[in-house]
């Protein structure tokens, strides 16, 4: 059993993890905005802009819409923030940096990511605005469409562990450890090269989870439903939501890097973190380019894509894992 000291240590590491995630997300958000602006032939904001926007929101007055349910309206941003903070603690930056046998498995990560989306659904409905409700029901539809390919693609690396011979484990740290070494020629032993189709499926699912086009901004399509679930939000509560959404730049890219891009590649301390962050930044840049270059699809298209193409990719890789070729 964990002692009180262990708990205190873990909580310290929790704050360290969210600090790292915060600063990376800040930088990545700036890269995202600057790069989008340059691709659209605009100048783009300065580096402090992402965080300045959020601080500005905290300076505004607090209010609760008359039609909203006060309790759920206030609670859901807090739940969103809390869920994504836990996610940024559970997904290690390349190498596990907490001591002891604390290994959160991939299913828990999957469920907390659903909890994060759930907060937006409840927020949309609790705000009492029709736009919020439409956005929330779109958010549910997106959870449904993404869930199956996401779950399969998340579990494929850990299922492949049993084949590699390092023993069955759902722990993300074991997945990272299994990716050290060389695959063929100069290619590293990343699951990206073992299961490329599954990595495409996971990438698209995570792209959607982090509100990037072509599918991700369906729930908050501003030309159709203003801001979707967040239409009625303003002031500090919107600030908390925006803060929670800032962490997506760390959480969802780090998940992809840990599972399919080898995490920190088993290097020594400062180097592995650096390698990991560079990989994350590359993923952010690719996501940004896709986001800027593509238009928003309709919701039925999202269903079709995820439940046919992505699912086919994921299932094909799953069959490869299970049968072994």
């Amino acid at each position: 059993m964990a002692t009180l000291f262990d708990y205190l240590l873990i909580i310290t590491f929790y704050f360290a993890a969210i600090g790292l995630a915060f600063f990376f997300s800040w930088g990545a958000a700036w890269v995202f905005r600057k790069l989008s602006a340059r691709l659209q032939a605009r100048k783009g904001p300065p580096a402090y802009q992402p965080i300045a926007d959020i601080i500005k929101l905290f300076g505004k007055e607090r209010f609760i819409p008359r039609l909203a349910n006060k309790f759920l309206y206030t609670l859901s941003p807090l739940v969103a923030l809390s869920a994504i903070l836990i996610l940024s603690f559970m997904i290690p930056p390349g190498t596990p940096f907490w001591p002891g046998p604390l290994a959160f498995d991939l299913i828990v990560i999957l469920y907390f990511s659903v909890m994060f989306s759930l907060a937006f659904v409840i927020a949309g409905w609790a705000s009492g605005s029709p736009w919020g409700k439409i956005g929330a029901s779109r958010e549910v539809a997106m959870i449904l469409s993404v869930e199956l390919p996401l779950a399969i693609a998340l579990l494929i690396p850990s299922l492949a562990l049993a084949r590699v011979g390092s023993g069955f484990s759902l722990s993300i740290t074991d997945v990272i450890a299994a990716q050290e070494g060389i695959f063929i020629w100069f290619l590293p032993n990343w699951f990206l090269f073992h299961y490329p189709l599954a990595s495409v499926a996971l990438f698209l699912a995570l792209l959607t989870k982090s509100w990037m086009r072509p599918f991700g901004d369906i729930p908050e399509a501003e030309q159709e439903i203003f801001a979707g679930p967040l239409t009625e939000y303003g002031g500090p509560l919107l600030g908390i939501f925006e803060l929670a959404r800032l962490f997506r730049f760390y959480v969802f890219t780090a998940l992809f890097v840990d599972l399919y891009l080898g995490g920190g590649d088993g290097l020594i301390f400062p180097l592995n973190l650096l390698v990991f962050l560079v990989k994350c930044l590359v993923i952010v840049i690719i996501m940004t380019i896709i986001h800027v270059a593509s238009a928003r699809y309709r919701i039925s298209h999202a269903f079709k894509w995820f439940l046919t193409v992505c699912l086919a990719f994921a299932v094909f890789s799953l069959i490869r894992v299970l049968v072994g070729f």
Partner: protein
Amino acid sequence: MIDPAIVIIVLYIAAAFCLLGKKIRKGNDVVALLAIGFALLAVVLNYFYLPLWISVPGVFGFAFTINGYTNLIALIATFIGFLVVVYSVKYIEHRGSSYSLFVLLTIGSLIGMAYSWNLFWVFLFAEVATITSTFLIAHHLKSPSFEGGLKYLSIQIFASLFVVVGLGFIYQEALASGYSGIGAFSIDFLLSSGLLTGFIGKFSLFLIFLGFLVKVPSFPIHTWLPDASTVAPASISTLLHAMMIKVAGMPAFLILLLFHSLFVSINFWLVICSLGILTMLICVIIAFAQNDLKRLLAFDSVSQMGYVILGMGIGGLAISFYDITTDPVWLVVAAGGITAGLFHLLNHSLFKSVLFFSAGAIEHETGTRDINQLGGLLQAMPKTGYVMLIGSLAIAGVPLLNGFISKWMVYNACISAGQPVFALIAIFTSALTLAVFLRILCSVFLGNSPGTFEGVHAAPRSMFTPSLLLAIGCILFGVFPQIAILFLILPATTVLLPVAITPPANPLFWVSLDLFLLGTLLIIGLIIGYLLYRIKWGATPSEAEDKTMPFTGGTLKDPYLKVEEARPASTVFSYPFRSLLNGVRRSHTGLVNMYILWFVLFAVLMLSLLIVGWI
């Protein structure tokens, strides 16, 4: 300890007392509450194996056994039964003496069934419970209630034919070996004497399994449960969903797991697991299309039983196909699967009772169960709303509520048994369940009020307290599942496992998932958010009314163009499954003949597979 026979006799006598008091409703309530309170006390005392023995001479010939498994099932039955009786005091307004009579008879028979360690007595109590609960289902004495009750009765009676034939085969075997009497059906006797061997033993047990599988219920024969529980009063729906299907359905897996040496084929257990998968997936998809609150809950119930079937199937696969006496890895898988199944059974009792109690309160106060007509009830019935929120999130598997743990254990058991496909479909089903329950929560509690619910007020205390207790249980078992697993589930698992297991230090099956830590971190996150929200950053709150009106996009007159009637249309949710859904909907004709035909086809298929020797 108090002999379970006394509990059952007390319940039956109390039922007879209820016949006397046709004029005195309060008297009925008092008698029923006293009897069920005594039963609860006795079952809890039995749980601790206290040496205080109150016993009756064996004139009745009951074959009761007190072990971990029977304790667990009896505790579920009695606890939920107690809450059902408490709930009924205010809920059932116009009742004759028959309601209390049949409730006590049903609960008594189910407790008897839970404690019975003899196939004959299990069958007999199951029949009594089936017949008495039919009257409860038809309580409203209207044509749909009679229809639902008759459908229920005919399918159940048809299923018990299989049990009768199976028992007949067993008795024939016993007679041939020179044994006679009811004792020949005792599970201990059948296990120790080696009477059931070879094909006849397998065949007869499989017939009994099919008969009890209807009561679980599993996929092709699930149709009686939604039909019956929609027309029944909500207290009776709770009784059906939280007690009946568990107490009456679990013997199916009890016999399979205890007599695992007869079912050594891996195909057999894969078929059981696939039944679980089909049950959970198809029924949750049907639940999408429902507009009746109770019918939706009922289909979801069937879907949740799929997790139980899956857990039991994985456990059985590990027990019978692998050598768990020497291989600790597969022992872990076996114990994990069975524990997960039983834990989900317990959890499902908790949250489904919460949901049915709340649905009953809603129907009681508003007079309708149609999801499309309900709305905005969180303002009128806040307590019921928040309790139902907890129940829905628990059933959808949101972390730190009990449904998450048991589902997580089922996934882990599947993956470590080398069957990740089952786990993946179960994960997807969990997401579908979440969507189903978000639809309920959003349209019933958070949507716009249609305006007809002006006079609706909170449910009476006796209808709210039971669901509050169970919701607290959902949170408790979600954060400290070790309590439930160590004290309730593992004793039952040890009965079903052929090998003794020592409970591990961390009973969450050898993976360190520290839910208390997760809860702590979640609360720290909430506190961070709350501090960010409360800290005074600058401007003072204003009271301006116009700022608190919904955002209209600039238009002030008739701003939403009917958008305010927006609901989470089932079309958005069911879009990807539309063709499948239409097929499923067309096949659910509501004709009991068709349903029995499904069952017959299913049974013929399974039995021919058994005869061919494939399973």
